[in-house]
């Protein structure tokens, strides 16, 4: 709230009361916008964070082995491709009927979210190995060093292609997440804001650390994102099928809670069963 607004709200004239009501209405509107946008922003931010850490690891490996020229040119070419993809596909979204868009996006989100949640549960239970950025970095590093016997121009091409591939693949996932999380309710801008926040955070930490981001709790992030995307997926699929959820969008936090409890219970049961089998 601005100081000017505080003064006016505190006034006792009729005009002051009108301003107060108007300000309260604006604040209520702000709260409503945030209540609607916050799940989209946070889901997009967290999911993009995971994807961007994965892309950064490869680009950093390329940069440290072959120098920053091929790493950055490969990344920039990938970003250009992604921008073209968004420019071509983006306007088309507006022509699709909303219920069809909600259904298609809901189903894709459900598949995407359940896939992440399943993997996170299995990793939390120790049935799958945790994703290790250090080993991804080492693998890419040794792959590029093994190619060092080829001539220089070919090496730069291979290195640039590795960066291009990593940024394109992870970038496509980010684009999908932004569209899927935001398009159902016209929140693509907010979801993009979340993704951009993740990009800035990874870039800032990457520049500070100057190494693979090994301390990111990737499984915990994937667990949370899997829960959020599954909840969004069920919600949008239901909207597309005109389910008419009780409480409307207030159903999303309840779905999040349901998937959280299910995920934690499943991971706990699997862990206990593993311990029992080991003893």
């Amino acid at each position, binding site marked *: 709230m601005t100081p000017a607004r505080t003064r006016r709200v505190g006034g006792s004239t009729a005009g002051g009361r009108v301003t107060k009501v108007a300000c309260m209405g604006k604040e209520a509107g702000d709260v409503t916008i945030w209540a609607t946008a916050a799940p989209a922003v946070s889901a997009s931010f967290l999911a993009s964070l995971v994807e961007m850490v994965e892309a950064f690891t490869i680009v950093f490996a390329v940069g440290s082995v072959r120098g920053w020229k091929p790493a950055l040119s490969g990344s920039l070419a990938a970003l250009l491709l992604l921008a073209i993809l968004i420019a071509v596909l983006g306007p088309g979204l507006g022509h699709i009927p909303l219920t069809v868009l909600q259904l298609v996006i809901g189903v894709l989100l459900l*598949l*995407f979210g359940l896939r992440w949640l399943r993997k996170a549960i299995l990793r939390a*239970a120790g*049935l799958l190995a945790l994703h290790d950025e250090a080993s991804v970095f080492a693998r890419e590093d040794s792959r590029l060093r093994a190619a060092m016997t080829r001539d220089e121009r070919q090496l730069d091409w291979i290195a640039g292609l590795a960066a291009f*591939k990593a940024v394109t693949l992870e970038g*496509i996932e980010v684009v999908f997440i932004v569209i899927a999380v935001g398009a159902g309710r016209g929140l693509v801008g907010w979801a993009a804001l979340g993704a951009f926040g993740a990009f800035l955070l990874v870039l800032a930490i990457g520049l500070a650390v100057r190494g693979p981001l090994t301390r990111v709790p990737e499984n915990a992030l994937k667990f949370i994102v899997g829960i959020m995307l599954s909840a969004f997926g069920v919600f949008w699929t239901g909207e597309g*099928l005109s*389910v008419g959820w009780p409480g409307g969008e207030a159903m999303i936090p309840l779905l999040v809670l349901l998937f959280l409890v299910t995920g934690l219970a499943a991971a706990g049961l699997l862990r206990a069963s593993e311990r029992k089998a080991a003893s």
Partner: protein
Amino acid sequence: MKTLTAILLELYGLFVDDGALAVLALAVVALAALLAVGLHADGRVTGIVLVAGSVASLLFSVFRTKATRKSGS
């Protein structure tokens, strides 16, 4: 060409990791769609099928993976 194939495979892998989970989740959506569009069922029934079916698909997939690993080890 290899890069394009990798991108297409990655796109597929974005949604499908465990084939059984994907098939089950799609079957749940198909059932919900049949209830909502074909049988004009109450929205609450469709909602319950969607929510319970998604959770059941997830649980089936993780416990099936555990059982497969156990029998394989």
